[in-house]
């Protein structure tokens, strides 16, 4: 049995599900957001053994029969609507998360990309950048800092071509409207409000000239690289997440063997079986590592660059490989 943990509206699951069905493997798609109100989880210990049973409301699943788990975009446990006291709601979430984490730990399956705790560490930019350097990746000269005194010197070292990024993606409002911090090209204007850095750590990097940006998807030991050429788009040039589909070209990219191998090794070293790695290919032909997202988007890599990621995910989930108790290496 393959267990998919994700929101019911997850398009990525919809892309993989038919591939799994065509491989003839049984699949349960369940959202932990249904727990504890709509679904039931029981861990029973007796006679020197234990059984963990998940009743999704549609079916009952002995978690020992699960061979692979795809942890995609699960919602956190959600109390029933009529649990209204905020402290009671927090209590329910806390208790439910604790048991869920334990149940997943006891599920003798392969995980894509990994369990929750592993993802939390792997997603941390300062951790994965250190690992990337250890694995031989070139990274931009980077500062993670909330020290206002670091700003102007970094700007000068970058020759006045510097970008700032968030430590972690986040949502907030300004005057009531949803705002975002995309990759920000730092200007002299930004230096004048250096005192604001005291309120939050940020990432400062020299602007890396790019021939193309690359999104590299690693599934197990398979690698799919898509070029994102934003050079014709003033909207998306500094951050392709500004989406400007007519002017941004996507296409497959052939990575040098050693770069592809390095991507696989880095992903595994972080305890992941899947990773979405962002690289820049410079005009000089150098591959520069920016970051890895343990659960990063791959749909556009398949749809726009024509790379068969959903097949690779289905293959990985369906493969009958032995369980590796040390994790997902």
């Amino acid at each position: 049995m393959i267990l998919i943990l994700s929101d019911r509206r997850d398009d990525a699951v919809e892309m993989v599900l038919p591939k799994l069905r065509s491989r003839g493997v049984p699949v349960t798609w369940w959202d932990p957001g249904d727990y504890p109100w709509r679904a039931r989880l029981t861990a029973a210990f007796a006679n020197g053994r234990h059984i963990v049973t998940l009743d999704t409301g549609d079916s009952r699943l002995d978690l020992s029969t699960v061979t692979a788990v795809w942890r995609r975009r699960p919602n956190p446990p959600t109390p029933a609507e009529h649990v209204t006291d905020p402290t009671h709601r927090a209590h329910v979430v806390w208790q439910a998360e604790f048991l869920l984490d334990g149940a997943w730990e006891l599920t003798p399956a392969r995980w894509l990309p990994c369990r929750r705790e592993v993802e939390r560490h792997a997603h941390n930019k300062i951790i994965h950048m250190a690992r990337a350097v250890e694995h031989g990746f070139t990274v931009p000269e980077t500062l993670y800092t909330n020290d206002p005194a670091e700003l102007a010197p970094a700007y000068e070292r970058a020759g006045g071509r510097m970008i700032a990024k968030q430590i972690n993606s986040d949502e907030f409002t300004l005057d009531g409207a949803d705002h975002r911090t995309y990759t920000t090209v730092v200007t002299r204007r930004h230096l004048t409000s250096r005192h604001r850095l005291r309120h939050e750590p940020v990432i400062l990097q020299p602007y890396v000239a790019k021939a193309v940006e690359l999104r590299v998807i690693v599934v197990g030991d398979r690698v799919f690289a898509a070029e994102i050429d934003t050079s014709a788009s003033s909207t998306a040039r500094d951050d392709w997440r500004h989406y400007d589909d007519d002017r941004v070209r996507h296409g497959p990219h052939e990575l040098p063997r050693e770069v592809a191998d390095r991507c696989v090794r880095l992903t595994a070293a972080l305890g992941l079986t899947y990773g979405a790695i962002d690289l820049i290919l410079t005009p000089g032909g150098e591959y520069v590592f920016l970051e890895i997202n343990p659960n990063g988007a791959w749909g556009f890599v398949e749809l726009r660059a024509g790379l068969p990621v959903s097949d690779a995910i289905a293959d990985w989930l369906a493969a009958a490989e032995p369980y590796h108790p040390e994790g997902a290496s």
Partner: protein
Amino acid sequence: MSGFGTAVESGVRLLRSLPRRRADVEEARGTAAAWAAAHPQLEPQLVVDVRPGTPVVDYDLLLTHPDGGTVALSAPDEDGVPWLIDHSTHWAAGQLVSVDDVHLSVAQALTMLRSLSRRDVTPYEEIVDQCLIIAEVQGDDAPLDDAELQTVADEFRRGRGLIGRAATLAWLADVGMSPSMFESYIVGIARRRRFRQRKESELASAYLAAHRADFDRVRALWVVSPEKCTAATPQELLALVPGLREAEVTIDVRRARDLPAELVDEAGTSAGTVVGPLPHGGAFFTGAVLEREPAGDDPETLTAAGRAAFDEWLAERRRRATIQWHWS
């Protein structure tokens, strides 16, 4: 402190007091003008830095130094707003509209505006419709043949009067597209066109079966005039026409669904029955069906039914879609 030093200190206080929102810039200019009037020897000028994609603005104050030269003052205060939040942009900056998961950039919308062609819907509705079709073809990676692409490219160029390679390249430079971007753009149009054709073909038969009378070929006569025309037969109606001071007279063969609303409402009317006079946009409508030929299953009728079915499908998708115009 020198007089200049005191003035600088005062200028800093001024800058720290100015409201940092786009909507308040005029108020800030007024405050700065009053300050400038009190310090004429410094020739103060307020510079407003309006950032794109955010209501936040910045100010600088330019002063003339007593010994010559310019002093530029910036004085952001400590208001507790973190650095990246102060420099953030609206989440949809550069986007015009989001329709479900399709986000249309301003640049895409401008290109799209040049190709809008339908007169029966507003540009807003047509843009939304295009987004809905874009969503449908996102998973379409089936190859397109060269002939399909050539047809679309030729139609696109003809529609814009782009005769010859030089004119096309000049247009691409104008809209900021490289030739390879243009190729991708044409592929996008071709995929949307192919989707539309497939969908029309898929829906046509069932739609025709359910709405056959709408596709009858109807020969009809109608008169629109500021004067009321009352007649018992089409012949009487025609006989009235020479006596009218002003009138628009039409005799035409159309699908029943394309007749004026007054006659469509009377679709069941047998040939020869006169409808009206009825109020019609400040005038009066009188008309009659002259002949009705029932719709068959011929290719032309099926094509018309497919188009109507597609429009209905699209209207239903539009009703169900989550549409967010970001700047209205």
